[in-house]
């Protein structure tokens, strides 16, 4: 990340430190993304905030969520709460990603044990589960360990069937769930990552779903898209990530992301690296 001058950055960090000293919480602890998404998010996912990933089907949202879960549980040795509403969580894929990080079987099993999964398929269960987690259930759910990341994949799958039409519960459920996520992030100092689907706007442009009310909830929003135009067939594993909302970076900056980064142990001999392997 570029800063205008060293003096500016010093001033900013001093202000942050004073603020954190007053509130006795560290605001700048973050969960680094091990890929080029780090550059978009200004060095990673921030604790105390909600970050949103949106994209069409097959754009890689779940893969990024898996990558974050694996990174937090293996590199940072912290627990992860993963709420799966789409049924897409495949433990064998988590294991594959871990195998590209380490070849020690015990470490892989330990890392898998630090990821706690809840599988819920309707909005009421989601709201209830988030409320329970917020009011102290976080420690209980993780078996006593400290939780660093809460991932919800995806929020839109359970909430958007209730929005629109003649129903009026959908909006209130969405806001209750959102409130639980935000207070959980702030109170427990966890990084919250949610995924969302995309819809087409008035002029045909792609935008995240769930409407304008939801758009205020996440602090940072990233849109993932396939880079090639062909809608089917053997496409590449490259995706383009665009930052559409952020309080730290200028918006609409793009980065390319290679989903095969998480299978890099199989590719080490091929020499076709596209991104630098970021050390965490």
């Amino acid at each position, binding site marked *: 990340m570029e800063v205008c001058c060293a003096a500016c950055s010093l001033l900013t960090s001093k202000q942050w430190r004073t603020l954190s000293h007053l509130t006795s919480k560290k605001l700048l602890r973050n969960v680094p993304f091990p890929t080029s998404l780090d550059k978009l998010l200004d060095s990673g996912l921030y604790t105390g905030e909600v970050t949103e990933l949106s994209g069409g089907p*097959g754009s890689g949202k779940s893969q990024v969520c898996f990558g974050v879960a694996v990174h937090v549980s293996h590199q940072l040795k912290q627990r992860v709460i993963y709420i799966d509403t*789409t049924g897409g969580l495949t*433990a*064998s*894929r988590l294991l594959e990603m871990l195998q590209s990080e380490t070849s020690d079987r015990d470490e892989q099993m330990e890392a898998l044990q630090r990821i706690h999964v809840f599988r819920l398929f309707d909005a009421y269960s989601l709201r209830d589960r988030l409320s329970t987690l917020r009011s102290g259930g976080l420690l209980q759910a993780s078996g006593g360990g400290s939780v660093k990341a809460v991932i919800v994949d995806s929020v839109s799958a359970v909430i958007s*069937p209730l929005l629109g*039409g003649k129903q009026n519960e959908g909006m209130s459920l969405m806001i209750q769930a959102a409130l639980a996520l935000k207070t959980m992030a702030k109170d427990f100092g966890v990084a919250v990552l949610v995924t969302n689907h995309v819809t087409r706007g008035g002029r045909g442009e792609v935008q995240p779903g769930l409407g304008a009310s939801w758009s205020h909830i996440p602090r940072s929003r990233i849109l993932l898209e396939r880079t090639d135009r062909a*809608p*089917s067939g*053997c496409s590449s594993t490259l995706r383009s990530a665009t930052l559409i909302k952020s309080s730290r970076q200028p918006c609409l900056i793009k980065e390319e992301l290679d989903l095969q980064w998480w299978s890099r142990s199989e590719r080490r001999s091929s020499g076709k690296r596209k991104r630098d392997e970021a050390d965490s």
Partner: protein
Amino acid sequence: MFLTLPSILEKWPCQWSSGASGRRASPSFNAGEAVTALELLQRERECGSITTFSSQLDHALKGGLPVGKVTEICGAPGVGKTHLCLQLSVDIQIPRSFGGLEAQVIFMDTEGSFVLQRVVDIAAAVVRHFSLLAVDGEQKDTMQTFNMESILSNIFLVRCHDYVELQAELLLLPDFLRDKPRVRLLVIDSVAFPFRQHLDDLSQRTRLLQGLAQQVISMATRHNIAVVITNQMTTRLQDSQSHLVPALGEIWGHASTTRIILQWEGSQQVAAIVKSPCCIDTAIQYQITSEGFRDANQPEITLTNRR
């Protein structure tokens, strides 16, 4: 019997109701509990997958269609979606001694494309294949019970004429699955047909489809069954060029965990895996023979051991 407040607070409503009615709560899945990824891994390994009888497709899917997940098969008319569904309905019944799942299947037909003669042909080919493969005593014994009658009696066929009937059947399905615990596969062929006719309000259609998707996903997870849904294709104009894309909109694309698109490339039929949690995008060639869904350029009868 006196209960203290903390012990009441820990219980979920379904635990109270199952205690009152005397029925055991479903042992496989409790929505309130967390599982670790390690336990999920062990469960996935126990579940297994359904072979498609095309070794290239099985290899690309890391063993076959996963049980406990939703798979979508899209394709233009006549490309072989129903054939693949019929093949899977027979393959799920392969006995355990040959490495199969020995399970039953519910086939929901909305288009009227379930043709009994094709099922008979596919089943006959599978029985012939395994009777040639049987080597030891156990396998030969199971071949006594693995025959045409048993295969046909393990397929439960439901005919739905519109989307209301389809939704009603899906609502009644959990009770059916509780009574028939051997069911491991649900086929819906196709989901696009009832939703594309008589539904003019597109936003209502999207909401209904999303609700259906969540119902189906929760059933797949709770009862540990594989769900296969077929979809049609539609044309989308983009940059003044037209492309064939799966029907029912982009939001429906999020419903399935794995998406396979069957298409023609010249004179060759190709199955492209465009969305999958554990396999990168690949395309494999296949063909539909009189015996069913097979690899392209494969001879009619093979003697390779599939175990």
